[in-house]
């Protein structure tokens, strides 16, 4: 299974920084993460199932989207985007 790495408030909500999740795409993995850790519901994916606009996802160090394929050895990083003002 892929490993999802969380930081900041997401890490706290999920009870730790790293989580193994099933799925063949980023979207599937994030939905599995939400099912395992219901406190995360709505934090990464909005009600439509869309990755929030200012959250960046990397799959094994490459920028990714919801449809990006995920392999069992991949490491998925969830990071706040560079934004603000």
């Amino acid at each position, binding site marked *: 299974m892929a490993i999802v790495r969380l930081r900041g408030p997401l890490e706290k909500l999920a009870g730790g920084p790293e989580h193994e999740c099933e799925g063949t795409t980023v979207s599937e993995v994030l939905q599995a993460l939400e099912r395992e850790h219901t406190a995360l519901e709505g934090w990464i994916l909005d*009600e439509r*199932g869309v990755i929030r606009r200012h959250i960046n996802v990397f799959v094994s160090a490459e920028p990714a989207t919801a449809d990006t394929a995920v392999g069992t050895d991949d490491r998925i990083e969830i990071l706040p985007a560079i934004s603000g003002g």
Partner: protein
Amino acid sequence: MTEVLVGTRKGLFVLDGQPGSTFDITARFFEGETVDYAMRDPRSGRVFAAVTSPFYGPRIWYADDLSGEWEPARGVALPKGGDDALRRIWVIAPADEGTTLWAGGDPGVLFESRDDGATWALNRALWEHPTRPQWRPDSGGLSVHSIAPWPGHPERLAIGISAAGIWLTDDGGATWRHGNAGIVADYLPEDARAGAIDLCVHHLERAPAQPERLFMQFHGGVYRSDDAGETWTDIAAGLPSNFGFPVVVDPADPDSAYVIPVTAGDRVVPDGRVLVWETRDAGATWTPHGEGLPQEDAYLQVLRQAFAGTGEGRDLELYFGANSGEVFGSGDAGQTWSTVARRLPPIASVRADRRA
């Protein structure tokens, strides 16, 4: 001692002090995030903050003790798998007794909690109202920003939506109907005004001592209703501008209302002067109050949630915050004012609570 909760573009500020003095900033929370609204529930003492994280979306947080942890409330979301997502929570309002609260937000949604705000449920009747496809957002979104409970009758509510008008329920939100008669939207062509529902309500307040009476700041007009929001009368004559955002009432006097007019074009206080306008005759006449407020070179704006009172009658305290980051307060029902805080981030909301 009075506590003033100030929601800003850069977090929640807790101010404590005595009317007429500069207040101390005693705490700051949610640094770097927009706090659209914050209030203390007078029944439970629980403090709520509506926070829109730039990364993680909108959420209601609550804390029973400001020296302790904040908890995220559950259920503040639209139905999963739909076409829309919650964008912002604009207001949180408690019933006068029990454990019920309501929260309004964008896109035109109302939530209800029956457990002191820990869990919330979407009001489906408003969400699924057959007129919803005709609702149009204003520049701030499609927002339930005003909730006016009826003291002693939690099943009776009036809410204001930008820009979908006034909505009324007598059955706890099971059914909703418009309360728009008499409102004139002068931003619409004359032949399009009759029956229009894209009405840009800016703020709505109920007079608790006479619950049938409501005051409303409209997008071009100040209105009063004497029949629980069914019909409206324009009472803006005598004000320097019929444009503005907040309204406050003195809970002891149903003939009272306070507004802070701004010019319709640039939406700052007219003539560089900050004036709070008061009526004590239900809008027949208006009196300006500026003693202690900036009276020259002021170009600030006060948003709809950024003006509030605590107490009543002669002891009514009033506080408002501006996009300039200043908070002004009055301990004598608006007769005189002083600067409570300055150099805060742009202010979205102000709520005050006189503490024992």
